[in-house]
């Protein structure tokens, strides 16, 4: 039971964004994708989300090709948090989070409980009645996160759940980055397979069970953070010379400029 891409390629207007890529996201694991700008991180995420028409290969969710899924069943099993949100209507925050309950028919009362719990999980209870349009970028990002959490809140009858997040930490302050880390770890512990695009290599190493490094539309390294984070690889991929030192508490390397 997993979300996997097999030989997936994506070409848009003669530009290859993703080259015959194989990925397997395992339930209960956090996979982080790192790489320079334009390396194909978002493309890979869109392919896994079924949001792009592949030029070759296929994507399977729990052993069934994504295209064969009934839309609402899939939405109960796979949730996606895009990089930017284009919501331009003045919903109250709780209504935005409640949109995550769209694929479920679990009733108004139960949905309200899920919305409360999801807001609590992202430290957003005090935002509940606020106007979404009046929030700061970081607050909006947390609210969108609560929305996808609410979408995958309970085990799906259609197999293991998977959550894809595109740079969820981009506009979060340090405290909320740590909060996000813990929320994702919690979700993974419940058996949700998580794939997250992050720019900060140290944050990626801290949260991920598995780290993928992408360059020019291909995965160039994959493995545990300790295996992947090597000075030569970072120099090769990012063109930056870094030092690696041991984390004082955890078994991961720290990338230092």
């Amino acid at each position, binding site marked *: 039971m997993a979300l996997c891409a097999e030989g997936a390629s994506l070409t848009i207007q003669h530009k290859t964004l993703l080259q015959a890529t194989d990925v397997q996201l395992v339930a209960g694991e956090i996979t982080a994708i790192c790489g320079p700008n334009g390396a194909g991180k978002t493309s890979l995420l869109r392919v896994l989300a079924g949001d792009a028409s592949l030029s070759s290969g296929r994507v399977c969710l729990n052993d069934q090709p994504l295209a064969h899924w009934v839309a609402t069943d899939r939405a109960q099993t796979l949730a996606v948090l895009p990089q930017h949100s*284009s919501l*331009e209507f*003045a919903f109250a925050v709780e*209504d935005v989070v409640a949109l995550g309950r*769209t694929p479920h028919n679990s009733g108004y009362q139960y949905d309200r409980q899920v919305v409360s719990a999801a807001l609590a999980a992202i430290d957003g209870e005090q935002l509940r009645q606020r106007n979404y349009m009046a929030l700061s970028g970081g607050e909006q990002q947390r609210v969108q996160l609560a929305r996808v959490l609410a979408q995958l809140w309970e085990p799906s009858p259609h197999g293991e759940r998977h959550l894809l997040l595109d740079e969820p930490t981009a506009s979060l302050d340090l405290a909320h980055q740590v909060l996000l880390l813990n929320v994702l770890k919690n979700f993974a512990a419940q058996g949700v397979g998580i794939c997250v695009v992050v720019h900060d290599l140290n944050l990626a190493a801290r949260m991920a069970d598995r780290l993928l490094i992408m360059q020019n539309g291909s995965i160039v390294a994959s493995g545990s953070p300790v295996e992947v984070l090597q000075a030569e690889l970072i120099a090769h991929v990012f063109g930056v010379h870094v030092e690696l030192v041991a984390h004082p508490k955890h078994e991961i390397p720290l990338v230092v400029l």
Partner: protein
Amino acid sequence: MSRINPRTFLWLAALALVPAMLFGLLLGPITIPFSAITDSLLQPGLRTELNGELQSQFLILSQIRLPRMLLAALVGAGLAICGAAMQGLFRNPLADPSLIGVSAGASAGASFVIVFAGGWLQAGHGNETLGLSLMAAGAFSGGFIAVLVVYRLATSASGPLNRGTSVATMLLAGIAISALAGACNSALSFVADNDMLRRISLWQMGRLDGANWLRVIMAGLALVLTVVGLLGQSKALNALLLGESEACFLGIDVEQLKRRVVLLTALCIGVSVAVAGAIAFVGLVVPHIVRLLIGPDHRFLLPSSALLGALLLVFADTLSRVIVAPAELPVGIVTALLGVPFFFSLLVRQRTRVA
């Protein structure tokens, strides 16, 4: 946020319709006393006696004012709910049937039918039902093509990631469509004879003075279909506000949703143009006011817009009959006078985003 409870608002709007309709019935070039309504309804016997005044008042009420007021309510409700649904579809609060060329497309379609089928209809083959249905079909086709073209242009302009629709492109496409429809109208006017010309000019300026029971029934049928159809899509429309991809991730069949909304709005606008011409700005102003008061949730926005749209057009129609009595202004002028300042204020607020 300080907003009104949506359910309370629905009840208030429904309640406010009652006095508005009553005033609409009683006011006009001839003011009818309230007792005329009660007398003619409760004591039909009085009418048949030699009571000439009550007799004529009853005729005015039943043959002129009542169908006209109902038509105003139905058309207003239809325009407003379509405006709300289109703004949801375009994810843009400036989408309005009259601004993005749907009404213009529809009136060009109606003119087309008047010119090319009018002669045939007048030759004695047709009756009013057939003529009006044909006109509605023409208006529907014109409106349908206009929505499709504008939607295609506005969504593809936003780039391969398809995030949102481009406001500028949408409004520009609306201008282009309106210009094209205007050109078609002019060309059709050029070949039309006098009688056709008079009828064509009717569609370009919304007016309700042609109201009769047949039109009320047609508008009623179209409105019922549209309201039932759109209310069924309200949860999906909410999800669509997040963006097309996001709605898809939430299990919404976006293509099907778009097809349904486009079809239903084209139907409703087409029929409303056929029975009352192109009445501007109701579809823009009403959903905006409702959103400010109760928020953007389509489950409440759609029915509330319908009620408030009915209220606004009944009010505007009463106004149009009273201010220059015994003559009357076409109601489209009144709604435009109310709507244009409102539209300007919206544009000023949106200026940064349009640019």
